[in-house]
């Protein structure tokens, strides 16, 4: 079994000194996570308590991607709300009552803190408690912060899931919990593979409906599907649940190791594991080989965005034949990232935090074949002649597990192939 793995690098990046930077950050705040969370949790509503900027961010981030009837809104703070705190709490009660009257389908309501609500110290936890008591049992009200002063992009999902952990009931059942809001098709594939090995019962956080919830306790085993769920990881630890550490399930290698780590905990035999995974594994290898043709021997530079950077760099270097120049991540949490860092070959600059202008200088000097960056930087860099991949697509597209491994490679290879396809010189 093990001989089929590509051997780990002789020296991984786990002892590479990290370049820590503090300067202008070119990243979204945690509110952005609402865009996918509200689609995943179908009876939930997200009410941001913030400013016009928050509403505009959600709309602009969503406008680039979707424009359907949203299950989110912003309670925009006005001049009068900033005067006295008692007023703000009453105002919030009024807005929430209005909202719940209009949307009786809402079963869980998240009050989401923002930069202004944090700065004026509007206590949303207290508000959530009060409202939960008032609207129980029809509606559960929770709170978390998605503010830009406390959260970066995907940390919003982390804060949301972490807020859900304490309210899950207690259980002693030995169950597997998969943590992370994944697209349905991907989630069902993972569950399908694990069930075929005889692993179960399997629970998902977040459950798509509040009534689908389950208990948690010292016999719960959990695996993270996303690398940014560190606060949730800690909240689960506090409930006594046990973490199954593994590389994240991107690409054939990541998926196999992730599944293997779970299988080991549930006593799955090598034969059974091979029986279930051999076919999809071979498909993944084949699909990645095809989709990554344009990537072999090319260099890649990551700007910090979603915290997926290190696992993705591991995938691109080990499965797609790329060379990483710099891997920037907003945060590097060793508690969940170590298996991936160890697999990432020594060589690239590993950067945490950001000073965007300095990082742009390094990127221009390196002239990488592919730059993975946010939407604010992509077109300007393309105009300078660099090939880019917008990072946000990696969060919104099904990219986990075997059947998507080829798609994941394709996301990176498409911009590279496109540049060679376009021919604007005079036609012969």
């Amino acid at each position: 079994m093990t001989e089929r793995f590509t051997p780990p690098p002789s020296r991984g990046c786990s002892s590479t000194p990290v370049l820590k930077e503090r300067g202008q950050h070119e990243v979204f705040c945690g509110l952005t996570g609402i865009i996918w969370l509200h689609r995943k949790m179908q009876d939930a509503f997200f009410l941001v308590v913030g400013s016009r900027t928050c509403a505009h961010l959600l709309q602009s981030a969503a406008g680039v991607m979707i424009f359907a009837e949203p299950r989110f809104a912003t309670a925009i703070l006005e001049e009068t709300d900033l005067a006295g705190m008692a007023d703000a709490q009453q105002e919030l009660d009024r807005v929430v009552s209005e909202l719940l009257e209009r949307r009786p389908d809402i079963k869980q309501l998240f009050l989401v803190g923002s930069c202004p609500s944090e700065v004026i110290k509007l206590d949303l936890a207290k508000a959530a408690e009060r409202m939960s008591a008032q609207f129980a049992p029809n509606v559960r009200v929770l709170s978390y912060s998605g503010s830009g002063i406390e959260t970066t992009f995907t940390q919003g999902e982390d804060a949301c899931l972490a807020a859900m952990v304490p309210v899950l009931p207690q259980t002693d059942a030995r169950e597997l919990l998969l943590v992370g809001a994944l697209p349905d098709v991907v989630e069902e594939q993972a569950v399908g593979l694990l069930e075929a090995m005889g692993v179960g019962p399997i629970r998902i956080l977040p459950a798509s409906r509040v009534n689908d919830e389950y208990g948690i306790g010292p016999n719960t085993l959990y695996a993270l599907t996303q690398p940014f769920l560190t606060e949730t990881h800690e909240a689960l630890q506090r409930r006594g649940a046990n973490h199954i550490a593994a590389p994240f399930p991107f690409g054939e290698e990541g998926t196999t190791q992730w599944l293997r780590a779970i299988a080991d905990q549930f006593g799955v035999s090598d034969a059974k594991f091979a029986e279930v995974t051999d076919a999809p594994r071979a498909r993944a290898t084949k699909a990645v080989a095809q989709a990554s043709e344009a990537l072999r021997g090319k260099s890649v530079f990551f700007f910090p965005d979603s915290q997926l950077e290190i696992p993705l760099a591991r995938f691109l270097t080990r499965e797609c034949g790329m060379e990483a120049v710099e891997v920037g991540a907003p945060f590097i949490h060793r508690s969940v990232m170590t298996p991936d860092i160890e697999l990432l070959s020594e060589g690239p600059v590993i950067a945490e935090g950001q000073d965007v202008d300095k990082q742009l200088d390094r990127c221009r000097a390196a002239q990488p074949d592919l730059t993975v960056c946010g939407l604010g930087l992509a077109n300007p860099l393309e105009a300078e002649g660099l090939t880019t991949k917008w990072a946000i697509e990696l969060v919104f597209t099904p990219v986990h597990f075997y059947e998507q491994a080829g798609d994941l490679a394709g996301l990176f290879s498409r911009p590279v192939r496109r540049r060679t396809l376009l021919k604007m010189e005079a036609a012969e």
Partner: protein
Amino acid sequence: MKLTVWTYEGPPHVGAMRVATAMKGMHYVLHAPQGDTYADLLFTMIERRNHRPPVTYTTFQARDLGADTAYLFKDAAMAAYERFKPEAMIVGASCTAELIQDDPGGLAETLGLPIPAIPLELPSYQRKENFGADETFFQIVRHLAKPVQKTARITANLIGPTALGFRHRDDITEVTALLSDMGIGVNVVAPFDARPSDIANLGAAHFNVLMYPETAETAARWMERELDLPYTKVVPIGVGATRAFVSEIASITGRNVILDESRLRMPWYSASVDSTYLTGKRVFLFGDGTHVAACARIARDEMGFEVVGMGCYNREQARMLRGVAKEFGLEALITDDYLEVERRIEELAPELILGTQMERHIGKRLGIPCAVISAPVHVQDFPARYSPQMGIEGANVIFDTWVHPLVMGLEEHLLTMFREDFEFHDDAGASHHGHKAKPREVEISEHVETETDTAQSAPVNRGTFEIVWLPAAEKELKKIPFFVRGKAKRNTETFASERGVQEISVDTLYEAKAHYAR
């Protein structure tokens, strides 16, 4: 506190960004938390700008709040000056920074920068994007423009066009041409593509063309007073307005009215018999005050529509628009609440909406055609082709744009005649639109079953044998987004038939997916 689903305008600092990003040699140092950098994508993605907006954000974090955020601002401003060497700076705070009261203007002054650092006071909890743009442009003009000698020939400034504006790029070309035909030159266009040194030279013109009152009216009034620059009141959107605009220019400058109408096709297109079906179509207009007022007159006087309602989201234009609405025997809807606009449209049930991207969405839901006439903008509102709203070509463009969402004359009649036809019915939509007409469900016989009810659809014949989708595979196929589902289905069937596979399982589906992976 106000419950808001979608907003028509961003916060005022986004208005300031629209001014800064339109300019060259200007830099905006914005005291703001990290998430506020989302605003860059408005310019790089929606407007497809090929450069970063010239904005430095201090991106303070919670842990900085305990210490001194003022230092962060000073460091950021100094670093921005040294890196970008702008000719002038604007400095200000976003909504969160406004709460911590660091006074960016005062801090910038203490830096002793060798360039003007213009402070902006933009109250984030009271005002919005258009105010932000208008106030920013006014402050820049007030700080930089000085009385200078007038140009020898008659020249005008074009003021108001910004980054992220609705067709501003092309309106500039059109208005420049209108003036040029009358022998009038352009002194400065601002803020679009202007440098701070150009702003200093605004006073050399003989008058201002106020293209967009939303973003430049305060500056226009100040320049009238301080720099002796009268400004135009007519916005040349529509045939009548363009004619009125050149007359106004003639009276300001004493020149003869010259308007080259050789390319003007709109009046004939509207008069031709093919347009008869437009007569009396009930339209509702919503957008910024300026575009709505101009478009209401076009709708009534140049298209022959019946205007059944109008409104604007920017309160600054409320009084003006109320006046226009009264002239139409209507009451203007002044609101920035998208749900209120939706309710009004539902009530009025117009046949065409002339609105913003938000109304386009309302229209989609209510099944009412919509053409876009105003910001807020979407990537579609920045077409590659020349597509102005103002002047002669603007009138032509407007005719085409407004007629496009409608079902055309003869087709409309046929739809009425055959409204019970299962393929050619009135829910099928206009034939010149890309989408596929939805066949109306008809009960012809018992064995017409809808796909969702059966576990297994009819076998597909691919060449020499029939291929069957197994229920699990079919279920899996439905999870694939609709816009690629057809391709996935076709690929899988081709893959199966090439291999002689008669039953498509989930594995076959993914074997095929892996096979075609690119």
